[in-house]
């Protein structure tokens, strides 16, 4: 079998060197065509009628007037009379018309009578949830009561992290065009190779009839795997419109209401331990919602899974609200926030530096040595020893500065992936893969791997992705893409090169096994005088190209990729105790990354993960109207994201290290997006002397924690 291993770290020519992303120019010039940019001859526009009520049944629905509106080509009803609706924003009917305004006019002309039913949307008040709370059953290990009694210190706190929306800037949607019984499908998707199968199942047609194209997409973050009812109804509107192409993308309010959320999490937590910082017990009573179907339990205690005495109770609460979807590191932000807030409160209780509490207890984690190295690095980068102080010990002025720390863990092994590499007689190289570039740099990374493997440069590789006609590659989720696509590309390239060596060996009068591809040449190992240029070598192919594939098999990644990434982040904030405004000074992120293929895009991933979670820490929150049961802030004015001046400075340290490198490639998108919220929450507690139990750390929540009537401290 050929040797697929990565070239040794010090011999790489392309991998490991910063490379501009290949599609940077297309994106920065506005020339990149996203699915929502696709315009087709004769295209009509789809618009959805959604439910204004959080819980209701449809008494009657009449589309007669809508059918007759100007420009209307199709009207469809998916929630006929008698249907029970479980959340506001749920789809009821669909219109296609020659223009979007016409389609909206027609949607307004649909007459619906609702029978409004009681709803429940505020899961934080668990006592009001009644039968909507489904307890998961108590999990116990050791003797918690005994450990609590014997402890030198016990911290006790309430912690709350709300529902967030994905807020992809490109909304969910697609353009669909039938051509006879074949379909052209331009979805905004995280799953180029599998989304056609999903749509085919809904439409009950063979997947082979659906051709998917997607060169770019405007953000998914876990919410864009399926074709959804939006895809199926878009296809049906197209059929009903006589095969006209249909563009259907969710409007912003609908996008923020039904296109996926991150579940909330609430918990009362006790942490107990000894004076020296040793943690001996964890007790939590937690609850969460992911919408109508309830939702899963965050993995707590996070990372410190070896705490000897543990008692956990969790309940999943069903609400009348749009459902959860995977959200960049599902359940990890919540688990990290709950755990590291509680541990930091324990450290404050025993008046110990939280860094030392964490280090003291690393034996309770799966990666003690790695975390210790990363913690010390982050501590040094953040000037921790100089800037950290006892909780609340931050001087007499109104501006209080504080530091906080949290750790993360993630899998990130490569998904199943296949790649085809063609070497053509003219010397050109084509790389085909049914993968997608969500903006993480996939295109660039596979080109770099191919170039490295073939002894060429990145511009020599023509990358073709974003099409389901290419070899199947997995959906992009769970940070599994980079490991998968880089490994399959490596194997395809090595296989193709072997074939090329067979063709050119006679001309070089050498054993094919003794050849290597370096610097645009094929040469005899150890005897570079016996060589031929890449172009000349390819001419030996005559008229037929080489076409070889390579596969990543997650069961046997052959050392090319692996899973299990740690990470540490430290936040440095200043809080104005008069206004409650939290200002970011700095986030230090030490990222565990295994083998780094492109440091430039890898670093961008970490910046992105940190920034996304600064939004989550300081401003993002889906707010439900209890009376009406609707999302109150289903727009970008009041569903807040951080802007360019809100994020402070971000210092990233990629933990590039021979020990890490030899583990192979590990995904990076999620691990970098986990611990920021917890670190910021801890920094605020350190600054102002009290825990703000609820994120986002908005002025309201900060001031309530400081001066609210239930708090110990008062404005006096």
């Amino acid at each position: 079998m050929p040797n697929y291993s990565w070239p040794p770290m010090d011999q790489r020519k392309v991998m490991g060197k910063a490379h501009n992303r290949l599609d940077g120019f297309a994106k920065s010039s506005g020339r990149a065509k996203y699915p929502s940019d696709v315009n087709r001859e004769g295209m009509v526009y789809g618009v959805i009628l959604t439910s204004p009520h959080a819980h209701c049944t449809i008494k009657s629905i009449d589309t007669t007037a809508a059918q007759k509106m100007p420009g209307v080509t199709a009207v469809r009803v998916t929630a006929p009379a008698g249907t029970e609706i479980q959340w506001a924003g749920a789809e009821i009917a669909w219109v296609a018309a020659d223009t979007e305004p016409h389609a909206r006019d027609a949607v307004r002309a649909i007459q619906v009578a609702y029978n409004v039913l009681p709803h429940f949307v505020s899961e934080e008040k668990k006592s009001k949830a009644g039968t909507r709370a489904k307890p998961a059953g108590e999990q116990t290990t050791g003797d918690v009561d005994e450990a609590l009694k014997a402890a030198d210190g016990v911290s006790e706190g309430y912690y709350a992290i709300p529902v967030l929306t994905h807020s992809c800037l490109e909304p969910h949607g697609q353009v669909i065009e039938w051509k006879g019984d074949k379909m052209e499908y331009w979805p905004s998707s995280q799953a180029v190779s599998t989304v056609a199968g999903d749509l085919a199942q809904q439409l009950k047609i063979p997947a082979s009839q659906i051709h998917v194209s997607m060169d770019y997409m405007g953000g998914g973050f876990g919410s864009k795997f399926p074709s959804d009812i939006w895809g199926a109804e878009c296809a049906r509107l197209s059929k009903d419109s006589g095969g006209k192409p249909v563009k259907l993308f969710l409007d912003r309010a609908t996008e923020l209401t039904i296109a996926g959320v991150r579940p909330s999490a609430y918990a009362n937590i006790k942490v107990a331990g000894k004076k020296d910082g040793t943690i001996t017990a964890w007790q939590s009573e937690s609850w969460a919602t992911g919408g109508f179907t309830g939702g899963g339990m965050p993995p707590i205690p996070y990372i410190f899974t070896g705490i000897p005495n543990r008692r956990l109770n969790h309940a999943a609460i069903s609400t009348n609200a749009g459902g959860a979807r995977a959200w960049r590191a599902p359940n990890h932000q919540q688990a990290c926030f709950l755990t590291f807030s509680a541990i930091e409160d324990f450290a404050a209780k025993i008046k110990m530096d939280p860094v030392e509490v964490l280090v003291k207890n690393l034996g309770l984690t799966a990666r003690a040595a790695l975390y210790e190295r990363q913690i010390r690095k982050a501590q040094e980068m953040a000037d921790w020893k100089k800037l950290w102080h006892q909780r609340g010990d931050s001087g007499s002025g109104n501006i209080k500065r504080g530091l906080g720390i949290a750790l993360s863990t993630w899998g990130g092994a490569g998904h199943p992936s296949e790649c085809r590499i063609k070497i053509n007689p003219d010397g050109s190289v084509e790389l085909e893969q049914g993968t997608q570039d969500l903006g993480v740099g996939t295109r660039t990374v596979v080109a770099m791997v191919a170039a490295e493997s073939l002894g060429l440069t990145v511009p020599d590789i023509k990358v073709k992705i974003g099409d389901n006609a290419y070899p199947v590659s997995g959906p992009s989720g769970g940070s599994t893409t980079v490991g998968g696509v880089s490994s399959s590309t490596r194997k395809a390239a090595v296989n193709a090169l072997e074939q090329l060596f067979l063709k050119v060996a006679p001309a070089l009068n050498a054993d094919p096994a003794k050849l290597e591809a370096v610097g645009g040449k094929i040469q005899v190992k150890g005897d570079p005088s016996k060589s031929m240029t890449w172009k000349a070598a390819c001419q030996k192919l005559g008229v037929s190209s080489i076409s070889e594939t390579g596969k990543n098999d997650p069961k046997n990644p052959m050392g090319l990729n692996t899973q299990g990434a740690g990470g540490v982040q430290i936040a440095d904030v200043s809080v104005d105790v008069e206004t409650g405004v939290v200002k970011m000074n700095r986030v230090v992120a030490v990222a565990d990354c295994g083998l780094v293929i492109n440091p430039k895009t890898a670093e961008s991933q970490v910046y992105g993960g940190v920034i996304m979670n600064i939004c989550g820490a300081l401003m993002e929150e889906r707010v439900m109207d209890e009376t009406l049961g609707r999302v109150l802030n289903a727009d970008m004015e009041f569903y807040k994201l951080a802007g360019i001046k809100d994020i402070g400075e971000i210092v990233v340290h990629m933990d590039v290290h021979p020990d890490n490198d030899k583990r192979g490639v590990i995904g990076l998108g999620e691990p970098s997006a986990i611990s920021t919220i917890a670190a910021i929450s801890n920094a605020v507690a350190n600054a102002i002397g009290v825990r703000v139990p609820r994120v986002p750390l908005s002025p309201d929540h900060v001031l309530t924690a400081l001066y609210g009537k239930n708090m110990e401290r008062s404005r006096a």
Partner: protein
Amino acid sequence: MSSKDPKNKKPFSRRGFMQGVGAGASAVGILATPEQAQAQGTVKAMGPAAVPVTLTVNGKPMKVNVEPRETLLDTLRGKLDHTGAKRVCDRGTCGACTMIVDNKVQYGCTILAIDAQGRQIQTIESLTANGKVHPIVPAFVENDAQQCGYCTPGFVMAAKGFLDKNPNPTYDQVKEGLGGNLCRCGTYVGVRKAVLEAAKALRGGATAKGATNA
């Protein structure tokens, strides 16, 4: 204005409002001032059906039929295939639709197409037209100031408008000046560097790597 028209008894809605506003050429678009409206001269009723207009996009006159309630952004994207500007919030919050109109940075989703007649509309496409590349574009590439890239054209145009007025900005001014655009992927670190680098390239007459002066 048609909202004062006694025949117009429809309940108030945003779309209805847009429709109403659009019914008179002098009607005040969200950003147009009464002075601008006056300067345009005659008050001529338009709509509610689509009407022919001429828009000057990147220096070229373009004829197109638009409904008076249609935004400039939708017209450019849907009818003139200028899809660089994106529609994200559709409410003047996110900046994804940023373009430069009469030398002013504007959100294309807050201007009606009919109100854009007679104005100079500059879109992202103009920065890489006629074989020339404006230095801001390669500065964004060099500094990896894009991930999914959906917000990027808006940022590039906001940066262009900002640098036109502030050729020598400080780091803090960049943070302030680009505050009208949002990115979900978290590209702000790269954007800050890109804008400073582009400023340098523009000032020095030298161009960022890959740029040909425009």
